[in-house]
């Protein structure tokens, strides 16, 4: 887990499809990164070969606007309708945010639950 990259979801871990959420990302790197990328990813787990995909992705590029070695951004996004988080006997589906940056020692990961059951904020 990266100490240099942080994802803040305001304490929430459960979301409903269609929820509007603010995701805060922060970084503190030895040098100014060329890019920082935030993804919202689902992946299957269980007996089958893993399938995964990014439902959302945003990339901040230094070519558009210079990036400082340390900084923070907040981005708004709407949670997708599915696939919902699921835990079965053979098939499971998990969701999570992933933050990566040029020059970071590791990526930051923040697992979440996408469910119709409501929020836990």
């Amino acid at each position: 887990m990266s100490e240099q990259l942080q994802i803040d979801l305001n304490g929430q871990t459960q979301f409903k499809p269609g929820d509007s959420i603010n995701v805060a990302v922060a970084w503190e790197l030895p040098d100014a990164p060329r890019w920082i990328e935030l993804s919202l990813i689902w992946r299957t787990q269980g007996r089958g070969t893993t399938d995964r995909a990014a439902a959302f992705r945003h990339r901040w590029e230094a070519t558009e606007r210079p990036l400082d070695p340390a900084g923070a951004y907040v981005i708004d996004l709407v949670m997708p309708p599915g696939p919902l988080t699921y835990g079965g006997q053979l098939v499971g589906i998990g969701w999570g945010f992933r933050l990566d940056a040029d020059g970071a020692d590791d990526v930051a990961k923040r697992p979440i639950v996408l469910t119709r059951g409501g929020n836990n904020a």
Partner: protein
Amino acid sequence: MVLGRLKSFIKGLAQAPDDEGAWWPVPETQQIASSAVEQASRERKSRGEGLDVRYRIELKTPGRASRVGCAGVLLIPAVVVGFLTFGNMAQGWVNIPPYVGGSIAAVLGLGGAYALLGLLAPRLKVLADRETFDPAALHTLAWSFSGTPRGVRRLRVRLAGQERATYSQGTTTTTDTHAFHKVVLYDTQESGESVTTVGTFDLDFPPDVMHSFKSDNNEIRWTLEVKAWVSFLPDIRHNLVLTVWADEDPRSYYGWDDTEGAV
């Protein structure tokens, strides 16, 4: 011109005295009568005496070609085995004892003939008023036989939820399945009803159920398993895959797969 007159003359001969013929403009009174008949028909159907007009989407049912194919798969080997056993061509290079070859050919041939007999059974369709099903709602679906379901002793509809996981080991690809839900929605044997030409049944999902999902190697599949037992004929079996989700089709939001080292 002459040919046209001749056609009209022949058509006139075929007409009953009170038959105004299709080439006359339909009188207004007749239009009103027709719409009244249609209205009465719709009302009759809505009272359960026929099929409601809203059931217009046919869930994909296998055609008769699959039954013919199945019969072919059995009949062709039956002919080949029979030929190799009793035919002159096989003498000298294939030596099948007549009683073995004859038995195999007879079993395969009877199986093929039985499969072909299924073509005589009435065709069964399952109809709905929508293409996707919200798991939180109660739905009503309908069945419809192509004719009077003579000989159909029992009709049963089951709802099945299944996980399917595909994985590879070496060059072998395997798909494991697990049924996480199976419930009978309608069974004439349980209700004590006789099988009718058309009818309806309720489709109800358990609470907080997982929606349909399909990726390259993993799947959550909802299926309607429809089976009709027919006297002296092969049973009618349809496994209809349902599309189950609440609101918007989530597949367009599944995204793209270039997520190396994902969460």
